[in-house]
């Protein structure tokens, strides 16, 4: 096999899949390495996507089918990397060694561990779940914590995001709109339930996001309360009581809920640390990989031949991730064309 | 002339007699009821006006011109005018001529109601008199006139656009019954009179038809049923009239003298309001005129439907229609009867009961009075001008340039003229605000109150009692300054300016010329397709309570389109609300007249 056409893509989420697909169509031989047992990353555990309620399948299926002929290594991680003049030699687990002139890192993010926000009682109270749990429930309908006929459901925005004490100063970018999406979905399933969203700021920057918000307010009657939940307590009947300040009226508010959904944020993937040191690419203070710059070369690293795609450099939406994957693939193409 | 019957009666007149008596009794009862519903003062004013020669003459003239000749309709559309006046005037003439016949030939039968109507049945012509020939000719002539009108009416039912109407009302069941019976009356009369023409005489229409019919109809047995049919058609029409749009015929004759007597709508349903509602002929001219018709969903919210719903007592719809209206007053302007749609709606709004009633006694006028200077011109910017600081700045700049000394009554806002509350039908609150503002104005010692907002101007000019203080809108005031040479305005002959009449200033206060003159001083005045009395509301009006922002958009776009008919370089208006409403959607500059004059001086 010609080593110079071989490109290693690390991470089998949507970023890695799209990057591999683009590399393939640009005439390279991408090798897609995924640490888990299946492709799709975090997106695969989701149900529907904002802002059009697109089923996840509609995104993943075309990606998966277009990867035909691409070598995919599942349950595999990078052990070490060394660089010679012309190429990188990557040692993978299970003894596989790959030589390639360029690498695309698409290792993505980690969902904030909601348990760390002890005051919300995730993992302790029976009726507290995360956004991911809720999506899983949408998919499978199985979660003992979701009651049959809830009369009140709450959403806590910014769980682990914009929170210095949780170690994450950055905004996770997608939780506001995800919370609204999930709130609407919950309201659709339980029309009788009052739905409360507790937010610090609503950051609805994308196309159609604001329409989603207006829809949630006007048509679904979801209550938006500007104030961060300070503490959650379990009541004797198993429900939870949430305390926050309604900062717009300057009064503390309390509400008893049948279900509380924590919007776990996007935090850096700790797997990046190892990869970054092997490839000698620097990390940002927030733990995400550092792009060459944050405007012009987001998908490029400081190292020649090492490119980034998606949320390994910071929180992003799916369309942004896909665009970056395409950008990274094109970056590889231009980089190697220049070398020839 | 001899009577054909030995006894001056035949049973076929019964349907007519019954119908006619019913209508007469109904109307008489109605008149009494309405008179009772008026306040004592109104009633006195109304009855006095009937005997006062000047108003009495005006009443007769107005009734003749409007009810019979439909002068206003002629102005709107000649076809429409001809159609209505041919039927109304023709019918009126036939009735008059019938009475003339009876009075001339059988004066002792005048007391029989049906004699003038069925004259040709009861009276046969034995000798040809010149008088008879002329009368018969006139009878046939006016019948022909009516029939032409009926034919036009039928055409209008299918092709209303020929008559300048895009949309017409959908008739109710009884309206349809009334309509068809009305249509039937005159062909049936023609038939009846034709069948009996060889006995009773006739003229150019009936005699030839009689000759034709007699060619194939052997005996005279057929003529009685047609007279029956004619009477029945009349009877039906009369009987349903009180419950149809045709009630407008008697009601309008009440409306005109009441209006001439200066009555105002005091109760949402009773008295004058009732006459207004009944006077609506249901023609639907207001549908096209209504700016809300820019959206299909609003087509049934114009005045004609308000009147219909009030007659039906459909409260939810009455409330919906009343609250949606922009109160631009265009329906009244185009209505040939002059039904005052906005006033009627305001009266409905005033019915509402509120759990929270505003009081302004905590507002201390002294705080405002203390801040006033001693200038003779007092400028009240008003809420809307405060939202358009460019206009306020220009007004002050023009005043400075013209060397007018002024003080500002509401430098930091905080005072409302009361017109918005009035438009919500809340008289008590309006009166309180008027009292408050009046006390400040009077304490200022000014002799001129200057307004830059037509909404304020209208209430200050029409509802405030300011004892000799001149209330003037800035468009008028600035035009004066320009004419007096105190404000030197440079005219740009290349600049095409379309002037938009704000509803409150134009239709509301009748000010059309001064702003145009002022605009002409700065550029070339071009007109919108509809202008002056017929200008189209910008859609921003405070008159509407329920129309939401997004639903006003189409109204604004339609009005903008109208303003751009003359390809202007800019739209000039004299209202801060129009200016900012247009500003949201216009692709050419929209300026207040103050801003225009300020920039050109």
């Amino acid at each position, binding site marked *: 096999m010609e080593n110079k056409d071989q490109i290693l893509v690390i991470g089998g989420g949507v970023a890695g899949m799209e990057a591999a697909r683009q590399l393939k169509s640009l005439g390279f031989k991408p090798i897609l390495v995924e640490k888990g047992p299946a492709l799709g990353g975090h997106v695969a555990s989701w149900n529907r996507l904002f802002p059009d309620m697109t089923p996840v399948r509609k995104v993943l299926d075309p990606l998966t089918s277009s990867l035909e002929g691409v070598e995919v290594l599942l349950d595999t991680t990078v052990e070490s990397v060394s660089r010679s003049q012309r190429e990188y030699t990557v040692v993978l687990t299970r003894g596989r060694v790959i030589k390639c002139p360029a690498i695309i890192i698409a290792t993505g993010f980690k969902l904030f561990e909601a*348990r760390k926000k002890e005051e919300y009682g995730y993992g302790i*109270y029976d009726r507290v779940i995360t956004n991911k749990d809720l999506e899983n429930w949408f998919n499978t309908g199985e979660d003992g914590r979701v009651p049959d006929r809830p009369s009140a459901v709450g959403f806590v925005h910014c769980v682990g995001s914009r929170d210095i004490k949780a170690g994450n100063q950055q905004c996770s970018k997608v939780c506001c709109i995800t919370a609204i999406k999930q709130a609407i979905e919950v309201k659709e399933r339980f029309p009788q339930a009052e739905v409360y969203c507790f937010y610090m700021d609503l950051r609805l920057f994308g196309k159609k996001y604001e329409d989603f918000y207006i829809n949630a307010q006007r048509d679904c009657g979801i209550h938006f309360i500007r104030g961060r939940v300070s503490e959650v307590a379990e009541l004797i009947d198993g429900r939870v009581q949430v305390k926050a300040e309604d900062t717009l009226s300057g009064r503390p508010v309390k509400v008893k809920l049948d279900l509380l959904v924590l919007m776990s944020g996007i935090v850096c993937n700790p797997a990046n640390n190892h990869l970054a040191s092997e490839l000698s690419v620097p990390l940002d203070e927030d733990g995400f990989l550092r792009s060459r710059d944050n405007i012009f070369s987001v998908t490029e690293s400081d190292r020649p031949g090492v490119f980034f795609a998606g949320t390994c450099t910071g929180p992003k939406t799916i369309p942004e991730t896909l665009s970056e994957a395409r950008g990274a693939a094109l970056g590889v193409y231009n980089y190697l064309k220049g070398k020839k | 002339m001899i009577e054909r019957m030995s006894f001056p009666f035949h049973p076929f007149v019964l349907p007519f007699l019954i119908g006619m008596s019913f209508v007469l009794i109904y109307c008489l009862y109605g008149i009494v009821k309405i008179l009772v519903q008026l306040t004592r003062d109104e009633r006195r004013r109304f009855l006095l006006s009937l005997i006062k020669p000047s108003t009495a003459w005006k009443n007769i003239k107005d009734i003749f011109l409007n009810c019979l000749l439909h002068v206003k309709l002629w102005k709107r559309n000649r076809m429409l005018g001809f159609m209505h006046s041919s039927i109304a005037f023709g019918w009126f003439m036939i009735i008059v001529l019938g009475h003339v016949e009876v009075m001339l030939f059988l004066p002792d039968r005048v007391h029989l109601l049906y004699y003038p109507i069925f004259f040709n049945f009861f009276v046969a012509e034995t000798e040809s008199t010149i008088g008879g020939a002329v009368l018969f000719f006139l009878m046939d002539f006016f019948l022909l006139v009516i029939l032409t009108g009926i034919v036009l009416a039928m055409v209008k039912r299918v092709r209303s656009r020929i008559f300048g109407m895009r949309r017409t009302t959908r008739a109710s069941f009884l309206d349809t019954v009334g309509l068809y019976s009305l249509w039937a009356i005159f062909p049936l009369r023609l038939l009846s009179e034709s069948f009996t023409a060889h006995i009773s005489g006739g003229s150019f229409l009936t005699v030839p038809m009689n000759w034709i019919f007699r060619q194939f109809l052997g005996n005279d047995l057929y003529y009685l049923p047609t007279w029956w049919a004619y009477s029945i058609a009349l009877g039906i029409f009369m009987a349903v009239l009180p419950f149809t749009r045709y009630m407008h015929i008697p009601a309008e004759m009440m409306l005109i003298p009441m209006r001439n007597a200066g009555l105002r709508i005091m109760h949402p349903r009773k008295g004058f309001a009732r006459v207004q509602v009944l006077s609506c002929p249901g023609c639907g001219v207001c549908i096209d005129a209504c700016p809300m018709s820019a959206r299909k969903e609003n087509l049934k919210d114009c005045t004609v439907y308000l009147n219909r719903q009030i007659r039906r007592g459909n409260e939810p719809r009455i409330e919906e229609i009343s609250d949606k209206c922009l109160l631009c007053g265009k329906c009244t302007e185009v209505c040939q009867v002059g039904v005052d749609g906005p006033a009627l709606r305001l009266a409905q709004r005033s019915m509402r009961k509120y759990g929270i009633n505003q009081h302004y006694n905590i507002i201390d006028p002294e705080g405002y009075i203390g801040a006033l200077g001693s200038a003779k011109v007092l400028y009240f910017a008003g809420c809307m001008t405060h939202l358009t600081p460019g206009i306020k700045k220009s007004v002050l700049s023009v005043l400075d340039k013209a060397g007018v000394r002024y003080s500002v009554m509401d430098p930091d806002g905080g005072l409302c003229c009361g017109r918005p509350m009035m438009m919500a039908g809340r008289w008590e609150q309006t009166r309180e605000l008027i009292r408050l503002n009046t006390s400040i104005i009077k304490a200022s010692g000014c002799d001129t109150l200057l307004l830059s907002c037509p909404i304020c101007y209208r209430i200050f000019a029409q509802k405030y009692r300011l004892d000799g203080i001149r209330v003037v809108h800035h468009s008028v005031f600035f035009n004066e300054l320009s004419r007096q040479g105190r404000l030197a305005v440079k005219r740009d002959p290349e600049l095409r300016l379309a002037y938009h009449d704000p509803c409150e200033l134009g239709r509301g206060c009748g000010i059309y010329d001064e702003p145009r003159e002022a605009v002409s001083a700065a550029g070339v005045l071009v007109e919108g397709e509809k202008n002056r009395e017929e200008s189209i509301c910008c859609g921003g009006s405070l008159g509407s309570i329920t129309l939401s922002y997004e639903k006003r958009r189409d109204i604004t776009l339609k009005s903008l389109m109208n303003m751009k008919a003359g390809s202007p370089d800019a739209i000039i208006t004299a209202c801060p609300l129009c200016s900012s409403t247009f500003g949201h959607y216009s692709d050419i500059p929209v300026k207040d007249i103050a801003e225009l004059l300020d920039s050109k001086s």
Partner: protein
Amino acid sequence: MIYQGKQKIWSDYQKEIPDNHWFYVRSCIRQSFFPASEHYFLKICRDLLDRDIYESAHHTTCGGIAYHCDTIPQETAMTIVARQFALMTEAGYENLVTSCITSFGNYTEILETWREFPELEARVREHLWKSCRREFRKPVYLAHASDLVYKLRDEIAARARFSLVDKETGEPLKIVEHIGCHYSKMFPHKGVGGAEYPCVLSGMAEAWGGKVIDYPERRHCCGFGFRQYLVKANRGYSMSNTYKKFESMEPYHPDVIITNCPGCPFFLDRWQYVISEQEGKTYGPDGHGIPVLTYEELAGLVLGFDPWDLGLQVHQVGPEPLLDKMGIPYDPSAKYNGLDRKKLMTPGLPAVLKCC
């Protein structure tokens, strides 16, 4: 409630507590509120469990109350604390154990401040030298006395004569644990189990057979709040906080409240009386209140000391129903006897709250 979730958190907040050789500093107010508690802490540790605990007659207040009432600046409080450290250093100890939660918080805060701002520590050393010619070493380990009892809970359990179990039903007693605010809310890692689910008291309760109940307002302050109580006009506010806690725990029908702070047991105890007078409301069964004990008193009961020797008679809410449940024998007539076993006097009984 998922118990494993709590255990996971507890495992995150473990604290190193040396087994022996402590320099003990007493609380200012406990000695008058519940004088037997500190006595029995020393007695249990020294006599029963054979630990070396030293205390000096020269130690003073830590300045915490004055500091939290905004009457002295922190630097003054630091100098006072530095003197305590000097006493400890002079006595040859390096582990400091405090009786008072506010002292514990005060010491912790000062040590953490010095860690961040060493220049402040240098200045305080200078102050101390100037004022009393003393020098000090900072304690190697700082613990609250309840930490120590937590550490020794199993040894106490092994010697227990009674357990926190209802004698009649065999059911574990329902125990509300109330942790003093200054224990771990400022520095969660300095407390056993952290700030959200501290296990210092719940660990004792469970080791001695009880069952801890988790009620919504468990985190809430007892209401003392220093200034809030000390200014009479604010006392309603202080009591309202306590009221809120009782309202919240009421549906769980707790048998006893245990606390590790000087102020908390006092206010949780006394306000029950005031609330009963003002609102006519009591929280225990049949018009009784909920007994509020210090952890030392609880340890003493478990170990079989006489309730009246433990000073339970100075509580407003009568402990008798609790003693009955645990099957602890007591002599009702000896309740108000002095140390000389002679009756002092019998206090008047409240109108609403039943106190046996």
